[in-house]
């Protein structure tokens, strides 16, 4: 059976794939969305399902909630994927160096990893954004700063077992530079368990971005779901839908990432005969 068909056999994975496909479609539609989601589209605080040209109503300033939601999907997806990619890259490089070099390098790198895990990652992100200033790129780095230690630990553990294999010994014997062995031979083989974490990391990155924007530390020039929830909070008593709708989008997105991730891990575990 092909991996794709095996993937689609579990109902959870199918649900996850559908949710993610919807999210990507939203983000793509946002590219075509005519005009600016921050433009005034109608009367302020129009409830959802009243006017079919504005299906999800409008916010305090009369902006189209549906347009904002679609544009928010873009920001969430971009930040989530970029931050996770950065965290996985930093983590696997640090983990490979620590595990392959051993000794003092390992000790120092792992204490630094400990230090990053000791500081609450959300507080670290908060401090980083507030010192450097909010923009999409800074938010990505801020989130990656708090997330790389997990992948680093896993990569290190994997490298420790790979480093004693025969092909590493033979690479040494033919006189390859240690750094070349570490990154050409060892790192690629240590990646699968690290990549298995990616769904959890993408999900965490999306949630962290939302929390940062909720506190007003997101990119001020972009519509984000966290920012929409914060906007709606001012009128929570009279128009709770403004906070609730983007939150539902967040929950469905993160759920989609988890479900699809579990499906992929299960599919590959079966293929490797680990099931």
């Amino acid at each position, binding site marked *: 059976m092909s991996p794709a068909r095996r993937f689609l056999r579990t109902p*959870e994975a199918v649900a996850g794939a559908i949710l993610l496909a919807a999210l990507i479609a939203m983000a793509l539609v946002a590219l075509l969305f005519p005009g600016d989601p921050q433009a005034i589209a109608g009367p302020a605080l129009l409830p959802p399902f009243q006017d079919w040209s504005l299906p999800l109503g409008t916010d305090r300033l009369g902006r189209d909630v549906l347009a904002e939601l679609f544009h928010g999907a873009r920001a969430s997806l971009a930040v989530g994927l970029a931050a996770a990619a950065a965290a996985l890259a930093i983590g696997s490089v640090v983990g490979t160096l620590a595990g392959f070099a051993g000794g003092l390098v390992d000790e120092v790198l792992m*204490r*630094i990893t*400990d*230090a990053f*895990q*000791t*500081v*609450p*990652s*959300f*507080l*670290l992100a*908060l*401090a*980083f954004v*507030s*010192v*450097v200033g909010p923009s999409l790129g800074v938010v990505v780095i801020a989130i990656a700063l708090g997330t790389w230690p997990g992948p680093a630990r896993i990569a290190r553990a994997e490298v420790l077992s790979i480093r004693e294999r025969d092909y590493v010994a033979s690479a040494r014997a033919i006189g390859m530079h240690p750094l070349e062995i570490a990154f050409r031979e060892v790192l690629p083989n240590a990646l699968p368990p690290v990549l298995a974490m990616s769904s959890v990391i993408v*999900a965490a990155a999306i*949630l962290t971005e*939302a*929390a940062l924007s*909720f*506190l*007003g*530390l997101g990119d001020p020039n972009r519509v984000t779901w966290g920012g929409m*929830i914060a906007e709606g*909070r001012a009128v*929570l*008593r009279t128009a*709770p839908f403004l*906070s*609730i709708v983007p*939150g539902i989008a*967040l*929950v*469905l997105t*993160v*759920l989609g990432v*988890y*479900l699809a991730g579990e499906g992929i891990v299960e599919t590959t575990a079966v293929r490797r005969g680990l099931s």
Partner: protein
Amino acid sequence: MIRALMLLRRRVVGSVFVLLIVVIGTFVLLEAAPGDAVDAYIVSTGGDAGMIELLRHRWGLDQSELTRLANYLWALLHLDLGQSVTFARPIRDVILERLPNTLLLMVSATALSFGLGSALGIYAGARPGSARDRFLSIGSLALYAVPGFWLGLVLIVIFAVDLRWLPIGGIETLASDKTGVDRAADIATHLILPVAALGFIYLALYLRMMRAGMAEAWRQDFVLAARARGLSRRRLVLAHVARNALLPLITMLGLQSAQMLGGSVVIESVFSVPGLGRLAQEAVASRDTPLLLGIILTSAVLVVVINLLVDIAYAFLDPRVGAGEAGA
């Protein structure tokens, strides 16, 4: 026991190094922040160039980076975190004033998530693959996807705005002269929603870990042996399967403490709980970087202490730690 003590000593020494790295990290961030303590002071009080020069010299800000780092470390050793410009008080005093509320919130949320999470996990894991197992498994995954701050707002809409059962925020009723039991009950009422908002995500985590650990334990030989001895199902599940799945949860308790401190920032902001997290948000809003870094340092120390406590608890609960795994 002696092995356990040696392991503990190793952990304490390691923690000191880790905290040193954290201090250097916060120092770097402090240096990177635009403006220094003198700028902040002048903005709030006014003063001319001569005054700025004088203050820079008096506070040692005109010295080299290394000297300043040394001064910073020396001050920290005396538990001096510096002066908060926004509060015009020592940072240590401001933090100590807010810390109890955050600890109360964290301990309550941990008790809720760990207690209910592991109980539901045992309930689900006792019959792997059953309808209730699948329901709890999917339900916990959905719960795990919910951002705490949004859950907090939804709870406010339902229980504080619509039903008016619970207060909308704060830690206790202002300007009431409640004392003793009345005051405790008042605080408890205020804590219900924030504790739920903070704890539910971790509840899902503990539920899932417990369930996964039990699924693992069911396959082990000792469970088969216990079955063969004809133990009752209840004893089998509780004394053998669940007990073995519990230890990783206790480790997780320590690891999650840092995440929970981070999570309390948004939760305290949503519910206006005057704690450390809300203070961090206030520090960001007023650009009080020394205060924010003081909070980070305090949190790091707190996380280190919690993890040491978890290690001690682990040594007592798991006989193998004392027996031979000192190097692990």
